């Protein structure tokens, strides 16, 4: 078993000392050590141009069925009209101010389905979040899955019906979340169970299972 390098030699390797700083008797050892370390291959590595195609093919597969279904739902005006017809109080709203929207969201029965889950990959599931907020200028969803960052997951309007939606890939497990309307109003999901957040407000719950079944 060969002896290890002298501590001063190691400091040269670490860049803390230069060869000139060493006593003469250590110079040879230091030069040997430097030669060893400099033998490392530092050439840049360029990967195959096919990497992008391969990755995107898989990524599209993960996004495929559930996201496409979601987009089809969003772009089908007939479906949305049916939803509006079922809830007459929505039609009376007209051009609703954000405050009025909140009142509606808090008082109407929980007949909306809440977040919908589909399998995305082995250990994350695509979850679709939906909020009806016709007077809102912007809507986001914030929760334990994105550190409650209100700009991380914006929702997009689905046509002109006042419905906002987004699809996120969430890991399996239980998550708390809430919608943020116009950057400052925190709103629970009327379609999901709610728990106290400890600050006098409520958070919504979504439990994501490995099988992608709709669960709360």
């Amino acid at each position, binding site marked *: 078993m060969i002896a290890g390098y002298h501590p001063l030699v190691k400091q040269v390797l670490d860049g803390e000392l230069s060869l000139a700083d060493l006593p003469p008797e250590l110079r040879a050892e230091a030069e040997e050590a430097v030669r060893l370390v400099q033998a490392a291959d530092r050439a840049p590595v360029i990967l195959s141009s096919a990497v992008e195609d391969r990755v995107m093919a898989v990524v599209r597969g993960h996004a495929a069925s559930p996201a496409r279904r979601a987009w089809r739902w969003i772009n089908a005006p007939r479906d949305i009209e049916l939803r509006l017809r079922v809830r007459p109080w929505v039609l009376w709203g007209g051009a609703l101010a954000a405050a009025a929207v909140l009142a509606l969201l808090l008082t109407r029965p*929980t007949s909306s389905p809440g977040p919908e889950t589909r399998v995305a990959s082995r250990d994350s599931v695509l979850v679709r979040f939906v909020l009806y907020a016709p007077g809102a200028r912007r809507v986001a969803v914030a929760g334990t899955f994105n550190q409650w960052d*209100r700009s991380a997951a914006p929702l997009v309007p689905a046509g002109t019906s006042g419905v906002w939606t987004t699809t996120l890939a969430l890991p399996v497990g*239980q998550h708390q979340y809430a919608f943020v309307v116009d950057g400052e109003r925190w709103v629970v999901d009327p379609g999901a*169970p709610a*728990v106290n957040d400890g*600050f006098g407000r409520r958070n919504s*719950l979504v439990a994501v299972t490995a099988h992608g*079944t709709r669960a709360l």
Partner: protein
Amino acid sequence: MNRCSLLLRLIVLAVVPGALAGQDVAKQLDGRVSPDVRKAVVTIAADAAARGLPVAPLVEKAIEGGAKGVPADRVIAAVRTLAGRMGDAMSALRAAGVVAPSGDVVEGGADALNVGLTSSDVRDLVRVSRPPYDASLTLRVAATLVALGVPPDQALQLVNAMIKAGRSPGDLLTLPAEVQAGVGGGATPGQAAAGLARAAAAGRPPVPPGQAKTGKPVNPHRP
């Protein structure tokens, strides 16, 4: 200095779940909460860790308070309350005979206490959660049922009925959705839960009130 290493120098730590054990609490809170909150939570977290409680939920709660613009004293109070609840859950778990509860189970117990289930409820739920039933799952389902509006007693009754009937853990997980379906059909959460419990006890497949199929035969020639 080549470009690759220069770019790597711009990497700042981004926490990936599970990637870094023993993360520094203060570092996680930096820039997300006020210095007062950070200082207090570091202490609360250290104390919790010393008692074997999970620290991540405390950090998460503090960050949530910061994001929601909650005043510092209320954030600290909420984090302290959560730590206390996890401590109570830990005691209930030990009383149920769990020697070294995992973080998941402690969090599940804390969730159950948060919605209004008692320590004895938690203890009882854990006691009936022998394999294949996972205690953190049973606790989570019970807590979610109560969060949906099912009275605590009925939530417990339903979970117990399902376990007694030998239903799969997967069936337990879909209980909240079934209660919601029942509510959509016009039942109260309590009624929906009671109906499901009766069905489980009678060995029938779970069909919430208002959702019963009419039993009409399907015409195979219909387009």
